[in-house]
């Protein structure tokens, strides 16, 4: 293949009698009309995906750069310097957090205790109560206008059960070891 010379792009390199300057339509209009009207065929669906599944694509440039930097740091030993700085950097917030927990341990424990014993059960009961009172506003289409006592009780029981199970789950996972 000959390279494309940017200097000559768009310029007529050949003399005006050269037939290569003619367009296909000028050379033989009738044959050209027949051939130019031929449809382009399309391969079957998913052709693109079938091809791409067999093509190896390089990683994006940023990923290659990260890998190159990582390799350079490993080779020069700079990686240990960076890891040390990162470890020191993460020690500071950890130390601050630990000192805060140590200073306010009893308050935190009491807060968690209150949340599980009073806060969440009250919220659950309140939600069921509110739902029963405002049933006419929030009832889905086709539901009865007014809840009977057994229906309200079963709805409230459902809400309380749901929230209680969430509460117990949270309690199991969130309670600090000292309070358990």
């Amino acid at each position, binding site marked *: 293949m000959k390279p494309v010379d940017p200097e000559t792009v768009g310029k007529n390199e050949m003399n005006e009698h050269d037939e290569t300057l003619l367009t*296909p339509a000028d050379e033989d209009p*009738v044959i050209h009309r027949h051939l130019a009207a031929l449809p*382009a065929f399309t391969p079957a669906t998913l052709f693109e995906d079938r091809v791409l599944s*067999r093509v190896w*694509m*390089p990683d994006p440039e940023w990923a290659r750069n990260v890998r190159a930097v990582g390799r350079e740091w490993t080779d020069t030993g700079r990686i240990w310097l960076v890891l040390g700085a990162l470890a020191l950097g993460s020690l500071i917030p950890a130390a601050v957090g630990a000192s805060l927990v140590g200073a306010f341990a009893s308050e935190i424990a009491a807060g968690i205790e209150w949340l599980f014993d009073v806060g969440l059960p009250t919220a659950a009961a309140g939600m069921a109560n509110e739902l029963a009172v405002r049933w006419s506003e929030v009832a889905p289409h086709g539901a009865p206008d007014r809840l009977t006592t057994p229906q309200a009780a079963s709805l409230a029981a459902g809400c309380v059960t749901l929230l209680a199970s969430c509460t117990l789950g949270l309690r199991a996972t969130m309670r600090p070891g000292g309070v358990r």
Partner: protein
Amino acid sequence: MTFSAALASATDQEVVAWARDGVEAAYRELLRRYERPVFSLIYRMVRDRELSEDLTQETFVKVLNALDRYRPEFKFSSWIFKIANNAAIDQLRRRELDTLSLDGGPDATTPDRIGATSLQVGDVAESPLDELEARELGSAIERAIGHLRPEYRACIIMRHVEGRAYDEISDILDLPLGTVKTYIHRARAELREALGPLRE
């Protein structure tokens, strides 16, 4: 401008540069640009839809896996058409070698053996794919193209269907410019003769 709009308006060289950077959308853009012309060229050369799909797939896999070897001073279209045309010509040569005699295999000496190795032309049911091919390639001009010699066929398709310049066709087919002109001239003459009264 969105990235997809930028891709659609970029030159082939720019799209290739993005593809080399691992941008999948650039690979899809190259496929979108060339799947129809490449498939059409191969299909008109080998005249078998299923085989053309395989050859087109091979062409793209070869080209897209070798993008790092592509040199931007060359036209991308010339490169991909060259590979597609070579795939089609190789296939036609292979098919020529594989063609069995209608009168039986070369080693068939007895009537039984001749019967066993001969091709039974009429007993093969036409598949939906065959029907599709007959419909797609059945027009007078498509049939006339099918009767051309493969090298004439490649030249005339690239010139009149794909609108390629003579020197680009010469690059793609690895033929001297004069030979390309001669082939196109002869192909047109054969097409004129084949089309006869249908021409005007």
